[in-house]
């Protein structure tokens, strides 16, 4: 592809990515939001995280089947326990990496 084609492509991709990121914030932050919407949005972070994580843990990447034996899930168990006990973000990241590395060697 030529430089002009790359530029056109990435500006196009950039625009369609930026607008959904910016418009709700620009609009809603200067509006009086109804309490119902605020309450609903309060559940969005936990819902987004649950929806992001679960398929990583339970969907096999090659067969696209649901499984309970994925390494990602097995490592998530001690990682989750560590997160609940310590509530340390950095510690949890390192512990998760350590178990994943260890499991990759032994399993």
């Amino acid at each position, binding site marked *: *592809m030529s430089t002009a084609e*790359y*530029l*056109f492509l*990435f500006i*196009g*991709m*950039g625009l*369609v*990515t*930026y607008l*959904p*990121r*910016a*418009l*709700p*914030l*620009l*609009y809603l*932050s*200067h509006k009086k*939001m109804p309490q*119902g919407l605020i309450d*609903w*949005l*309060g*559940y*969005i*972070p*936990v*819902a*987004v*995280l*649950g*929806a*992001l*994580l*679960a*398929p990583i843990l*339970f*969907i096999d990447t090659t067969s*696209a089947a*649901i499984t309970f034996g994925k390494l*990602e899930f097995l*490592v998530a168990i001690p*990682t989750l326990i560590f*997160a*609940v006990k310590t509530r340390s*973000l*950095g510690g*949890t*990241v*390192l*512990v*998760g*990496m350590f*178990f*994943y*590395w260890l499991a*990759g060697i032994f399993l």
Partner: protein
Amino acid sequence: MDHQLPSSAAIKSAIYAAWPICLGYVPIGLALGVLAEQAAIPWWAMAMMSVLVFAGSAQFICVAMIAAGSSLGAIIGTTFIVNLRHLLMSSALAVYLHGVRRSFLSLFAYGITDESFAVNMARFRAGGWTRFQALIVNHLANSVWILATVSGVLIGQLVPAGAFGIDYALVGMFICLLVFQLHGRLYVITALIAAIVAVLWAWLIPGDSYIVGGAVCAATCGYLFQIKRDKSS
């Protein structure tokens, strides 16, 4: 509304909040760069894409579609669909950025990703977190992303894949941030509904729509349970 610039302690805590994201972006950015190199995408084009788009999954899809010879319109259309989930995150952030001037929000919006959203929402909710600290998190993550993706094109093949379990950094971060978001029984139920809906959705429908699908279903259930609870009490 504070208009003060952050103190050095506040900047330090923003850097501290951002490091798991930065660490997690290194292997993903390198992997993306390696794929781009295989698709004959030059490093400067990768730099341009990471600056203009800054969205991990869309960039992976873009590289795959370029390699497959897709039309530019198809790539842009797919990017739009994949990144619609940011509508939800941008809306949820508006609760904590109410009344902030639009020039700041325009800059801030650029850096809204799954990762920065999860980190900043946990901090905003815990309190004492300023929009400037949130902006620092966004832009640190962005800088590392640009560096990692460009490095991937240039030297990615020299780096051993999967070293030190680094591929698990973002998963570990999401697990802990999920724990931070469990403020009570309704939140635990919401997380479980999101997980179940997203897994079934991802299993039935190819693509990334499971994130929006699972999140909207679960947040709506959580909200309806809250209304029911408040009525009965």
